[in-house]
């Protein structure tokens, strides 16, 4: 035992305790309300009291001469996102500016360069493409694909996701996750806010790997008024909290499980939660799928996103097969002809092969259209609910009922008056 003592409180210190720090001072630092004097002026404040401010379009324009900045779309924990047009290409893009206090952290520039280069190589229809990244003036930025649609949080709040659409969404997310995982990129912050859905029904995952760049840790939006306790990060896998150094791609699968549960039931799987089939009318086989993705042991979850996709697809397609047939006759399976050596002449397809190929193509288009129409309908319903879509003003349901009731009463009175007048 050493003879060192804490200069603040005089407590004896030991090298093997509390990493050499004073345990009493450590406990004191965690107790009571956080001192406001501890907060530098530009630091992120307790959530709900102040958010980092976003630069104005006029302030940014000078740093991005090749972009025509149009509007501020959103301000989040990592940065601000603007809608812009690339003047040379006439292409609409999203410009993400990272918050100043994040970018000013020691070592950030090196991390940014290292990680952003990897992120920019991700090219998949289910991942928001990064066109460009870098730093200009005091700003670190990403120029990304602009996605015209809504995010899953908005869809969940609007209760516009039927079960069939939820399965399709999850399968698309699995495809994108598997692509990124195959390239060694883990998202680490999968949540409904980071999953966008276009009107066509196409899913786009946002901010892949960005949380590692900015060193951000998922936080719960729930905070008490008096204590800034770490709320449960709902989508964070247990190992992200308990063993951060052992986190791998299976943390994304866990987070997708939480999203999956929320899409099906509208609720988060907290504490002792009920299997989804007890909350909504869905195939009970989905219970095991969802519960397995939510296993706190990474080794017991699905080890690959593609495994999860296969299970969901199997359940989804077998549920369709059990339904009364309302579809065209089954398409005969055709084996694609093996590739011929270039020096051999390719024989022309027979009429039977041409017909089978046309039928298969139409079946795929119908399936894609069906999937897109389900999700697209959900997106349109969400946009109407959040007011994104400009449509005719609609009266709320009870108001319509009242108007109809009074209209009928007035009509009855007129009829009675006419009867007595004759």
């Amino acid at each position, binding site marked *: 035992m050493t003879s060192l003592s804490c200069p603040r409180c005089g407590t004896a210190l030991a090298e093997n305790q*509390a990493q050499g720090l004073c345990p009493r001072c450590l*406990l004191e630092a965690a*107790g009571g309300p956080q001192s406001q004097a501890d907060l*530098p002026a530009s630091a992120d404040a307790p959530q709900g009291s102040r958010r980092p401010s976003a630069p104005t379009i006029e302030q940014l324009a000078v740093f991005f001469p090749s972009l025509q900045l149009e509007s501020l779309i959103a301000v989040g924990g990592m940065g601000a996102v603007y809608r812009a047009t690339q003047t040379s290409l006439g292409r609409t893009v999203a410009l993400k500016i990272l918050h100043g206090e994040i970018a*000013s952290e*020691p070592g950030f520039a090196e991390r940014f360069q290292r990680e952003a280069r990897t992120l920019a190589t991700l090219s998949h229809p289910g991942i928001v493409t990064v066109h460009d990244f870098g730093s200009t003036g005091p700003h670190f930025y990403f120029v990304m694909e602009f996605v015209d649609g809504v995010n899953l949080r908005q869809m969940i709040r609007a209760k516009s996701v039927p079960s069939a659409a939820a399965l399709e969404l999850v399968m698309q997310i699995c495809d994108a996750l598997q692509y990124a995982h195959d390239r060694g990129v883990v998202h680490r912050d999968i949540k409904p806010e980071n999953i966008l859905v276009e009107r066509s029904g196409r899913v786009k995952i946002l901010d892949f790997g960005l949380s590692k760049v900015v*060193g951000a840790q998922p936080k719960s939006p729930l905070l008490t008024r008096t*204590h800034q306790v770490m709320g*449960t990060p709902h989508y964070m896998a247990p190992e992200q*909290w308990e063993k951060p150094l052992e986190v791998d791609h299976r943390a994304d699968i866990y987070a997708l499980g939480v999203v999956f549960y929320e899409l099906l039931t509208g609720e988060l799987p907290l504490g002792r939660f009920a299997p989804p089939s007890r909350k909504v009318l869905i195939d009970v086989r989905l219970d095991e799928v969802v519960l397995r993705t939510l296993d706190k042991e990474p080794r017991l979850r699905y080890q690959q996103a593609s495994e999860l996709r296969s299970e969901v697809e199997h359940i989804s397609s077998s549920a369709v097969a059990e339904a009364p047939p309302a579809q065209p006759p089954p398409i005969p399976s055709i084996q694609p002809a093996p590739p011929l050596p270039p020096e051999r002449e390719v024989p022309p397809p027979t009429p039977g092969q041409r017909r089978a190929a046309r039928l298969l193509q139409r079946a795929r288009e119908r399936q894609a259209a069906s999937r897109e129409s389900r999700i697209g309908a959900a997106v349109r319903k969400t946009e109407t609910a959040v007011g994104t879509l400009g449509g005719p003003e609609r009266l709320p349901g009870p108001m319509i009922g009242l108007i109809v009731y009074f209209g009928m009463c007035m009509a009855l009175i007129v009829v009675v008056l006419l009867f007595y007048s004759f």
Partner: protein
Amino acid sequence: MRRSFARSTPGRARCLGHSRRFSPTLRPCKSNGCREFRTGSYHGGVETGSGADQFLTTRWSIVRAAGGQDKTLARAALASLCQSYWYPLYAFVRRKGVAAQDAEDVVQGFFAQVLANDNFLRVAPEKGRFRSYLLVCAQNHLANLRDGEKAQKRGEGRAALDIDFSSADTRFGLEATVEDPNRAFERAWALALLERALVGLEQEYRASDRGALFDVLKPELTGGTGAGYASYAARLDSNEAAIKVAVHRLRKRYRERLRAEIAQTVADESEIEAEIRDLFAALGP
């Protein structure tokens, strides 16, 4: 009574570790003594907000809420808590005069008993914290041992928890001597709690390639060494303003992690402050 999964679906239900049918309700797989529970998860933090349901994601609250139904998740939560805080129990047992070789048997035997029985279902409301509960159980267990019950010997049966005792004796020897066993337990508990918070914070920073930042700024968690932000800025090739923000974020994150660790062991978030005060007193002279 819920229908059997096997009857209600054409699919094949199986334990995640073994190919054996079992009900999809939250029950343990009994294949070959498999101890896996097909359950949901509980997170590493406090679920704040309105309503007691929001708090049911912490381990101790899950244990307390088990009642007469679905003890599987509660047992898993209890096992996880015991795994995290075995050392304070070891320190308590040693202070009671048990020798090092026997203390390991006593600790494993104690946990085996705690996890096998459902005594946690009968925890009185006033014993709201896991620390208090564990201490009372430990006192009773040692009293029973004195009254003639044999401690489980090493190698007998299966160890309740996976505990590495190799450094326990050395660690015990290096700690300040606290004669009162209860006080020794509480002091060791406070230190274990701080260790968990600090190690978690360090791993978090290292996992996001900010290990150097943590190493340099760590002293600021307790007010610093007086070196000043200019010194940190020079070491980290940064400026004082950025260092100030980084220190703030480190302190904030540490506070969040420590409070979340405490929250795991209390039944209500209102007890967190009281627990901090009690542990602070336990670390006093």
